């Protein structure tokens, strides 16, 4: 800058402000998205080829959500949480039925963090993204339960802990 007037250094480009509650909710959702991406890697290995497209769609959606959430945090000057090297699965995965149950778990976990983000953030942009993520997770969970032959495939309040 060549301005001759002394004063504070030029201000950086304006950053979207994220309040503390929003940041903490987004970090939790991002952590769940990292876990979901990891889980689908394991799920893919155990599902028959006719489920490959559903797995690919789910992975692509969770990756896109992860990347968008990372960008939102980074743009606000916040360091996004990173993925763990590996995750503990609630039950050992040793076949298609276990893999489908793990998919339901991954979707249920992300749904909870996104519903929580809606409750904790009043930012319109965050709520809109969180609602889309929650809805997608609820739809995929229902489809996985249907694929597993469960009698009840929906829950009345997806994302409710």
């Amino acid at each position, binding site marked *: 800058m060549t301005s001759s007037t002394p004063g504070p250094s030029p201000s950086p480009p304006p950053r979207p402000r994220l309040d503390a509650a929003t940041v903490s909710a987004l970090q939790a959702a991002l952590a769940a998205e990292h876990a979901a991406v990891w889980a689908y890697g394991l799920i893919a290995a155990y599902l028959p080829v006719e489920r490959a497209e559903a797995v690919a769609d789910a992975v692509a959606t969770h990756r896109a959500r992860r990347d968008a959430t990372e960008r939102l945090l980074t743009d606000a000057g916040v360091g996004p949480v990173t993925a763990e090297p590996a995750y503990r699965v609630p039950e050992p995965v040793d076949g298609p039925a276990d893999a489908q149950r793990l998919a339901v778990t991954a979707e249920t976990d992300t*749904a909870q963090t996104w*519903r*929580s983000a*809606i*409750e*904790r953030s*009043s930012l*319109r942009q965050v*709520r*809109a993204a*969180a*609602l889309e993520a*929650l*809805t997608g*997770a*609820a*739809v995929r*969970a*229902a*489809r996985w339960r*249907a694929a597993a032959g469960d009698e*009840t*495939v*929906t*829950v*009345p*309040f*997806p*994302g*409710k802990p």
Partner: protein
Amino acid sequence: MLLGAPALAACTDRQTPPAPDPLEPVARRAVADARLAATISNAHPSLAAAAAAVAADRRAHAAAVRAELRRVRPTPAPSSVAAAPPSSPPVPTDTAAARGELAAALRAAQGQAATVVESAPGHRAGLLASIAACCASHRAVLP
């Protein structure tokens, strides 16, 4: 200030009715959807299980929304959700048409709940977001 009192009383007498809660139409729609889904479930064997599941979840939605309405306003306005018609709605005899009607009802319910999510206080927004997501999940698994 004795003269002031009657004027003030006269003012407060003119009570404006409280604005309707934006959750009232959500509760009414949930009740109507539950009835529609139950009727479709009875009339169309191939839709019976899916429609019965819709009916159960929409009843749960109505109960949760009514609980929230009661929490905010313990004595409901006369035009409240309790005044829904008790009769069964007519449903198409054609199964594809009945399926279409159920899907359209779920889509409308999802949209209605999603609209409230934008501006509602946190806990309400969470409840309505779950309702929207549930309706979307039912639509995705309709046979």
